[in-house]
């Protein structure tokens, strides 16, 4: 099984660093994997990010939508259930938990924990990504697995959640 991460660093991450960090590949969101706010006709795989149930439901049925991101990590039960039915993973972006203001950080940790708990209850798949916007926010595979456990994913399921984003693109 390969391990993947997805980041927002414009110039991408050199693959030597990716392998030191323990990843098979680090994918750049935007250029390699677009993040769109509505289902698109573009012939590539993309991540759908929205807080609108209607848009999410439409996107979940689109074969090109590789995964679903919920805006502000809001729990939308209907979308989570539909994602499970259609085999689409819910992508959890860890970047918000590193926000500078501590109150905001606590709030974001609680929201991500709530989302993960809801996704696990629905038995849907989770893909965890760092979403790093600069090299300072990159994490190694060990750190991401430990962070996933801290946020509520079981130690056994954590490695699979780090491999899912790569599987989504390859299929």
């Amino acid at each position, binding site marked *: 099984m390969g391990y993947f991460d997805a980041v927002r660093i414009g110039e991408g991450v050199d693959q030597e660093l990716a392998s*030191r*960090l*323990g990843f098979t590949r680090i994918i750049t969101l935007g250029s390699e994997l677009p993040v769109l706010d509505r289902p698109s006709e573009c012939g590539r795989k993309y991540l759908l990010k929205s807080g609108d149930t209607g848009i999410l439901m439409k996107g979940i049925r689109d074969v090109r939508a590789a995964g679903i991101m919920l805006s502000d990590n809001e729990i939308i039960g209907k979308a989570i259930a539909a994602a499970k039915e259609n085999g689409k993973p819910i992508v959890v972006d860890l970047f918000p938990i*590193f926000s*500078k203001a501590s109150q905001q950080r606590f709030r974001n940790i609680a929201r991500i924990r709530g989302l993960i708990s809801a996704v696990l209850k629905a038995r849907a798949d989770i893909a965890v990504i760092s979403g790093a916007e*600069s*090299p*300072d*926010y*990159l*994490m*190694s595979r*060990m*750190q991401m697995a*430990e*962070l996933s456990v*801290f946020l509520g994913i079981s130690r056994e399921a954590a490695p699979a959640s780090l491999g899912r984003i790569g599987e989504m693109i390859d299929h």
Partner: protein
Amino acid sequence: MIIRRKFRYLLVEASRDLEINDKKAQASLADGLAGVMGYLEYSEASPRVMAQVSRKAFIIRCARGQESRLLLALAFVKELDGRGTGLCTIRTSGSIRRLVDSARLLYGIPGSRQN
């Protein structure tokens, strides 16, 4: 009876070049870690910088059993000496010598026993 403390060693890579042997940098790292872990957990882990192996990488020691907490705390440290810095844990080991060897291989530093 003398109780011998056992340690784990972590190879950490920073996102920028740093001089971790500098006292100011070490104090800044200690403050950052204590801020994330809390003073009780920090004392239990008792992390200590052991060696700088390259411009970006260094080895840090902690009490055995606390390494997962420490590597998580390192992920939350985003500033050292007033400058934005990310810290990634690359490897962990029970022996510093093995970690130095793998660091030499990873960063292409001559002198590895496996070379």
